[in-house]
């Protein structure tokens, strides 16, 4: 039973779910200040390429390369953040979408990124943890599980820990002065400014945090999929990340995470429908927008279940 549950297929999907959930958090952070930034795929690609190149060309260990990739995204976010965040709403969305395309075209034309051919043979997290585990004497597996399963589980656990840490951080942030400032800016930017909140500072901060998390997620995904090419980070990717937030609900951090979970699992569940798979997927998205335009989880939902569950437990 355990053995079939820990099938590498499920574990792999689990990894994609967690990566997408991390991306969901990254877009949630910018949305928390009411900024519609669609540069996440761009930041993701900067993280992915930096991390892949650092490990391949310079031999940097993966656990250093991934955060460095995140920092590279932060650097770029700082440079483009100041001019971009003078814009609002749709204008910002278009500017950041453009930024993502610019990054993609740059990677497409650079020699070091191997242009359209992309980078293959990226050191894989699975293999690396596998090596560590076999050095620990688990080379032949453990308790009926193969080495591959154990190392996949280990990677899954690492990703889960990263996600939980990010979640914890985001939740703490929400209750801090910074989080209150974010919420104030989201509610009304002019009013927030009148109350003495340095809106530029907080908007840039949210932008940079989002960029860092997207960069880290990009690095993680590069080291999980062996290969990256410019095509992996086009605007489809951005839209996909954005849909996590729209589908799950963007007011609470649980929304994008739930969105990422469901929308990553859905195409796999629908594999049985073969030809109709993407049609059903699309239909579900449309139905969702028609019946729950604010996303699956909103403050209302939480309040509703809280009172309902609260009443039941008091009986």
């Amino acid at each position, binding site marked *: 039973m355990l053995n079939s549950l820990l099938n590498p297929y499920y574990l792999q999907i689990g990894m994609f779910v967690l990566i997408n959930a991390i991306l969901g958090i990254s877009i949630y952070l910018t949305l928390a200040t009411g900024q519609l930034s669609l540069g996440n795929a761009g930041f993701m690609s900067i993280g992915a390429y930096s991390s892949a190149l650092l490990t391949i060309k310079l031999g940097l260990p993966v656990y250093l390369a991934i955060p460095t990739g995140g920092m590279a995204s932060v650097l770029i976010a700082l440079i483009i953040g100041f001019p971009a965040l003078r814009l609002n709403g749709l204008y910002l969305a278009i500017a950041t979408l453009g930024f993502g395309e610019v990054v993609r075209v740059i990677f497409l034309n650079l020699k070091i990124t191997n242009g359209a051919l992309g980078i293959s043979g990226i050191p894989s997290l699975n293999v690396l943890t596998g090596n560590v585990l076999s050095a620990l004497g688990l080379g032949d597996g453990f308790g009926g599980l193969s080495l591959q399963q154990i190392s996949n589980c280990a990677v899954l656990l690492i990703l889960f820990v990263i996600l939980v840490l990010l979640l914890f951080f985001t939740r703490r942030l929400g209750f801090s002065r910074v989080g209150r400032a974010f919420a104030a800016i989201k509610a009304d930017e002019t009013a927030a400014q009148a109350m003495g909140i340095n809106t530029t500072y907080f908007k840039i901060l949210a932008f940079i945090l989002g960029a860092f998390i997207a960069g880290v997620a990009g690095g993680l995904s590069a080291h999980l999929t062996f290969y990256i090419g410019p095509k992996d980070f086009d605007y489809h990717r951005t839209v996909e990340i954005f849909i996590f937030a729209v589908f799950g609900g963007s007011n609470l951090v649980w929304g994008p995470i739930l969105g990422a979970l469901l929308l990553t699992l859905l195409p796999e*569940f629908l*594999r049985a429908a073969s030809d109709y798979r993407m049609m059903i997927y699309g239909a579900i998205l449309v139905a969702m927008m028609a019946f729950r335009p604010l996303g699956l989880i909103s403050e209302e939902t939480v309040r509703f279940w809280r009172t309902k569950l609260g009443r039941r437990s008091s009986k």
Partner: protein
Amino acid sequence: MKLFSEGHFLKGVAVIALSGMLLSVAGCGKTSSPTATAPVANQEAKIGVISFLSGGGAAYGEAIKQGLDMAKEELNAKNKIKINLLYEDSRGEKTDAINAANKLVNKDSVVGIIGPTLSGEMFAVGPIVNGAGVPIMGTSTTAEGITDIGEFVFRNALPESVAIPSAVKKAVDKYKLKTVALMYSNNNDFAVSGYKTFEKAVKDSGLQIVATETFADKDTDFSAQLTKIASLKPDAVMVSSLYQEAALVLKKARELGIKVPFVGGNGFNSPQLMKIAGTAAEGALVASPWFPAKDDANVKKFVEAYKAKYNKVPDQFAAQAYDALYIMSAALDKSGSATDRKKLRDSLAGIKDFQGVTGKFAFDAQRNPVMEATVLLVKDGQFTEFK
């Protein structure tokens, strides 16, 4: 406004984790039956297919599927080891291809995999499948370095590194070329890889490159590049791109009075080229492993049957997929097992003197195909053999 107190944080994490687990368990219930090993008496080999079945490149995936389906029907009518094909769609996306491969390898327990369609997908899928010890064979993955992934990775797609030099060599011999101009689409991995091969082949033949011009996929205006090339008067122009751009390049070039031969990469190898470029396509050269009008009994039979079934002439993707399944099946017969992946790999690696519709076929030590390309010339709106 405190919607989730700190105590609820962990609860939230737990709920999400639990629902994830429940969902995957639910998916798990269906799995147990197909993993059972096939009985020896009536052997059935499960072969997975990862293909680009929906999205922008679905035409390729569809042709591959038709070629495979036809080969399967013919093989199952006569062979002892019956073949069961399990199709998974990759949508041309890397992550989808990875999920598909993992499903086929771990859940469906296939003995081998045919696909995926794109080289980029193979770079992502190859290491996983290779690591799991499952033979995988690409039918359309032409990029350099595919089989370097590992010893379980095969391809029967004629790599451009074989096709392009043979086209260049034939053109040089026939037209006594001295100077050439190169053109390629720089945002397409396939075209860039083809360009690199062109460059090498041209240099190896001792030709002088007078100009290298680039464009991008979906470009429609090539006048700047071609005006420059026209002024340099090369003996031939080599183009590496997909057929859409190639056809428009040809059209514009003829308009500008460039009458020299054009040598193309695999992108030229499509009837669409003549459809779009019309008479401008005359004189274009391309090396192809597949030539439907070839004077060969095998080819004729295949084209007839394909026409009867799908009402069109099979293209290169269909032909290579058709051969791929025959090669797989020959290897399965030789290994004598419908489930042993290692045996299948070894007998695949030993395939030689295989006669398919794309010609005589063998794998070299690097598991790349050893086969001959036919150089085709567009003449009167048709591909004809260039001799």
